[in-house]
């Protein structure tokens, strides 16, 4: 379904696309490294 929400929870965020990219990439890298660390600790 298309979203027409103009009052959604993200509507007031003032952030550049680049900043959002960096945030998402950082969390993704933290998650990936955490999973890998957890896997290798268990060995």
């Amino acid at each position, binding site marked *: *379904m*298309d*979203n*027409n*929400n*103009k*009052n*959604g*929870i*993200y*509507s007031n*965020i003032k*952030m550049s*696309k680049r900043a*959002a*990219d960096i*945030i*998402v*990439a950082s*969390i*993704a890298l*933290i*998650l*990936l490294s*955490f*999973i*890998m660390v*957890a*896997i290798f*600790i*268990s*060995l």
Partner: protein
Amino acid sequence: MDKKNGIKDKISGAFHGMGNNIKARADKFRGLSRDEKRRTVTDLLLNNAMFIIIFLSVVVITILQPRFLSVASIVNIISLTASRLPIALGIAGAIVLTGTDISAGRAVGLTACITASLLQSAGYANAMFPGVSPLPIILVVLIVCIVGAVIGLVNGFFVAKFKLHPFIVTLSTQLIIYGIVLLYLQIGGNGGQTLSGLSPKYLEFVAGKLFTVGGIAVPKYVLYAIILTVIMWIIWNKTAFGKNMFAVGANEEAAAVSGVNVFKTVVGVFILAGIMYALTGFIEGARIGSSASYTGLNYESDAIASCVIGGVSFVGGTGKIGGIVVGVLLLQIIFVGLNFLSVDQNLLYIIKGLIILLACAIDMRKYLKRR
């Protein structure tokens, strides 16, 4: 023979079409400027970051423990997915309405305990109601569905009538439900203990063998999860109630102006969610083989994570049943995989939290682009 050739033509046509599509995309990509190419690749990587991470983790887990891809393990993943699917399908409705429901796990716990208490074997020494025969299964399903619906009605009423955020409403109801569970477990001869000694009929009805794959039994609740998924798909996509739910989630004021009864829709979504939690509780009781006050603890966090991974956005008015199924499946794959390697349970909480955070960040980034 003609029919066989027809199917062959269709398959080769589909592959041909897919090949053409990929070729056209590749040609389009080549025609882009350097900056546009970089943005396209970044979008592709970041929008699919969760899937990439889960895929990489599965590859590493499979290399370290090849049994992860055995039939037994795959059946286990499918069974766990089936048991967690109804709660995710219920909570998804609340998320579509830009809300959430953190009472879901406790509602599962309460309904699991009620189910177990009503379906304990008559001769069980520590039965909650000693000497009472187990009730008919269909009656118990009806009772727990009513309990779930009442929980949903309370949540929905306060959200719709007082315009409260579902977070605070469901926070209070989860505490109330937990209190009720603890009190309920004190009834009769139980004395707060875990409810076990369940009727074999109930265990057979829920966790009995549906069919076997490679010598491994697939439980019946997989079929029930499929039926519930189909029902929810029909409700979401083919009924006026489903359309109204998306309309209210996307823009409440616009929906109200268009003649949608917002109150009825919100209450209906929460009641439906409550029934789904009740059915999860009914399944969980038999799947685990016992019920206690901690049954259902943190189930809502898994369900919310599954929904967000599956594309049910917190921005409201967005989501697909298929996405939720994929979300639940992916989450189970990663956690079954990590359990396979005996990863510390404490670390799993951190991983779960990071998964939700990443899913929300990806979601935020997608909607940021549109402005």
